[in-house]
């Protein structure tokens, strides 16, 4: 026979799993430190690549000037400038994504506790059913 209580619960669970919960359930497989570290590494990498691309664009833009003054350029100053901006960018992006992704992890944990509560109810129903039969 159909158990309406169970169907209602299962519907809620399934709706969560297919919509908002997809990402949350994926996140639940990580520890917080692992997840945040992974994300910070990823954003560090993407920042590096983005910065390199900007450098290439800037290099091409100034190419004429660079070729003309290739001998007399002060490479040390330019190098330290490039490095300085890079360190600045990496720090800002690293700290930013650290804060952002920890926030997101905590938010997803909160949603998951509600989901787990429903799962517990579900479990209860299952136990009742098995003892009945």
């Amino acid at each position, binding site marked *: 026979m159909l158990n309406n209580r169970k169907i209602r619960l299962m519907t809620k669970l399934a709706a969560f799993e*297919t919509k908002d919960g997809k990402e949350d359930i994926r996140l639940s497989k990580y520890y917080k430190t692992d997840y945040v570290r992974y994300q910070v590494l990823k954003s560090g990498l993407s920042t590096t690549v983005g910065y390199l691309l900007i450098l290439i664009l800037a290099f091409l833009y100034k190419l004429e000037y660079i070729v003309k003054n290739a001998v007399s350029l002060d490479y040390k100053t330019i190098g330290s400038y490039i490095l300085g901006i890079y360190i600045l960018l990496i720090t800002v992006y690293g700290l930013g994504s650290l804060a952002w992704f920890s926030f997101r992890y905590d938010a997803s944990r909160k949603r998951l506790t509600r989901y787990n509560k429903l799962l517990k109810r579900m479990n209860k129903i299952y136990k009742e059913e098995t003892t009945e039969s």
Partner: protein
Amino acid sequence: MMPLLVFRERVKNFYQRNDIYLVPIIKFIFAFIAFQVINSEIGYDGRLKSFLVVFIMSLLSAFTPPAIMVLLAAGVATLHVYFVSPILSILIIIILLVLYLLFVRYTPRLGYVILAIPILYILKIPYVIPILLGIISTPIAIIPMSCGVILYFVFQVIKTAVTMQINMTVDDILQVYTYVVDNLIGNKQMIMTIVIFALILLVTYFVRRMSFDYAFEISIASGALTGLLGFLVSYLILGKSSQIFIMILGIIASGIIVFIVNFFKLTLDYSGVEHVQFEDDVYYYYVKAVPKVTVTTPQRNVKHINVKYGDLGSQSLDSEWNDTDTDEYDEDEDTYQEDHRDYTYHRRPIDRNRDDDR
């Protein structure tokens, strides 16, 4: 006002019953407009302009996540430019990559904004986006919005650059390249637009969050006013007074569009019917879950507010105080919850889905 509210209820009912068909249709229409606008604006490659190609691409984006549509649009635009100038298309790809790596990847859900801004710019109503995002989003949306503005101006510059005679010598390529970069960096209008758009979004957002009556309507008006003043000042400074008239019309139209969207917002709030599938040991279930609150007829709804308001309020308080053990689950509680949801709907329309499982 009453007939309008009834009409809104009808539309909402219709949407909730048929959203499984309506959403792809709406997405298809948007995608079709987007691709057509791109083709008319920078349609250099005739093959991509054929109706069949546009139709297939729109169909594809109707059934896939919005990210695919953004990707397709970027691809089409790049291919069009590639047809006339491979060098410029490489430049576009690099700029897109930089924007993605440094900014857009942090706000993946707002990716469609980047596509919407250039499209609406060409349709002369880009002001819709900042006002709308102020209503439905948070200030973080400034990031993708600014990227969209940059992208629009990049393509404006590219459009003039492709008319230049390009030979394949290094000198010429460098010349075109420096021309594009010069025009981008020195583009005061772009920077002003980014600033004004951000201002509009912030003003709309903060007015919307204030707690007085008609906050949403007033926030739309104040956002539009901010835009009007901001662009008026910027056009006067830049000496582009010929564009002022179109700008004013555009802002008024944008305000009206956002107002209409806001009126139907609950419908767009992902609160449609849920279709879910699951199974247990005995059955397969194909469940269609319809949110109860929206199926009530509008007339009865209005009656409910006054009659049910008082006793429901006390009920909900009582149950919240007594309901200490949330793990207990019984039939009564469940039926009560639906009433309770009805109550929360009137008080706080947006949050109603969050209270479902209390």
